[in-house]
């Protein structure tokens, strides 16, 4: 093996393997990508919700991308409570203002960040949500306060189309 010169045959082998690998990849990719969300699923990626009938202190749950979204119309006391919490007491520090653009409305993915169960409304030590699966306690801003969940409940992308309609997604 003293001679290090690249031979014609070495080049041909490398070129063949390279072309073969590209071809194989191009063949395998459709078989993998077919399991990703298809066009009919993506078409359902946003949902509009009429919130005119929700009274203060009530929560409605709507389905978005197959998951529950909590829409809570918070009372003035609840807003005050959510804003009064000190960030250093939080496991996942987030200001309430950052979680609810309009403080009256909390729009939040109703999925526990531990292992994906749906937490119960107005339960738990912090009067927010309580997950029955493994005992995670969330406050009235949906922030994790006690239990195994690592982060606050997620806020989806949403906007107010008008005063009575929220578009999620």
């Amino acid at each position, binding site marked *: 093996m003293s001679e290090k010169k690249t031979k014609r045959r070495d080049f041909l082998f490398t070129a063949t393997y390279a072309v073969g690998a590209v071809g194989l990849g191009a063949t395998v*990719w*459709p*078989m993998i*990508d*077919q399991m990703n969300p*298809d*066009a*009919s*699923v993506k078409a359902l990626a946003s949902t509009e919700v009429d919130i005119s009938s929700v009274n203060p202190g009530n929560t409605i749950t709507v389905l978005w991308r197959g998951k529950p979204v909590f829409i809570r119309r918070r009372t003035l006391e609840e807003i005050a409570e959510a804003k009064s919490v000190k960030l250093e007491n939080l496991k996942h520090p987030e200001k309430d203002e950052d979680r609810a653009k309009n403080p009256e409305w909390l729009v939040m993915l109703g999925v526990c960040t531990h292992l994906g169960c749906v937490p119960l409304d107005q339960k738990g030590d912090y009067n927010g949500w309580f997950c029955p699966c493994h005992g995670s306690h969330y406050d009235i801003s949906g922030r994790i306060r006690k239990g195994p969940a690592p982060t606050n409940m997620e806020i989806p992308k949403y906007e107010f189309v008008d005063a009575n309609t929220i578009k999620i997604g």
Partner: protein
Amino acid sequence: MSEHEYTPKSKVGKWFNDRLPLLTLANHLTDYPTPKNLNYWWTFGGILTFCLITQIVTGLVLAMHYIAHADLAFGSVEHIMRDVNYGWLIRYIHANGASMFFLAVYIHIFRSLFYGSYKSPREIIWIIGIIIYLLMMAAAFLGYVLPWGQMSFWGATVITNLFSAIPLVGEGIVTWLWGGYSVDNPTLTRFFTLHYLIPFLILGLVVLHIWALHVPGNNNPIGIDIQKPSKDTVPFHPYIVIKDGFALLMFMIVFAFFVFYTPNILGHADNYIEANPLVTPAHIVPEWYLLPFYAILRSVPDKLLGVIAMLSAILILAALPWLDTSKIRSAVFRPLYKQFYWILVADVLILGYVGAMPAEGLYLLIARVATAYYFLHFLVILPVLGFKERTIPVPLSITEPILAGSTNLATAKNKDSIINQ
């Protein structure tokens, strides 16, 4: 199986191989001595393995999106075509893959017929092959029903009604197959189950087919027994692997042409109309690969006898090793058989053509003559030919004609000196 012992070099390999001899198997497959004169007609075994794997992989993917229900099946196929990522590609590969599979299997079968690969000691390989071919036809038919278009529905109706030709129990069998009084949802769901099952049965039989092949080893273009390993053989890897690989690439070009440029040319437009139990399409024909047998069915003017003729046309192949009485395998050394072989090829092509035409007038007459000749070939010509034909002397080894310069009798007399080299 090759007789030589194999011991893995590494300690771990030896430990594993003593418990499960997979490395011995891998070594057998790479070193497997193969006749060195195999031509490209011998590459279709590998191509067929590729076809089977392609059908299984794309079929599994389609089954993730398809819904086997009379009300939803047609829509779910359109959903695959329009919504699923690359669904159009996967479905077109699967649909055209069936045609490519049959194209390859027909070449594979006619290769066997030309070179006498079905003869002793390879009868079991041949019969397993015929069973695989039958299962392929069943799988193709069942799969064709699943999109639940007009051709699916009426194809299913016609084929299942073939069983009604059986005296006394026929009607009962058809009702049992349908799970009702017509082709309907229960038929569709069981067809889906069976369509899913059969490829795995075929896969198992392919393993047996190859296992049985590796006992005597490959036949070869001159159809003689060879010593293994010897000057007449080369190891399977890399020689046959490269040759098979090149042929497979050529085959894939043809395959890709159909998939990307004319994906629907082998199908029927009527199958893009949802199944309607009230209206039969004006012109109903099976897929191209079943046409010769369809022509035989229609050429017999009796319901039961037509079905029997069609089934016999396939099953007669299983008896071929005993119908062909000639001891010489390859048609290269059988001047008369070679001509009858090509007449049979033409006969089957003619049957395929008239199978696609309306069963009336001249077409019907041609179909009847061609059907009669088909059976004549297997039942009369082949048995008689084995006794009457004057064959050309067969060389004693693959290398002999080259080393000795000719295949004439003088070299045959010289055989000891050649074999002992």
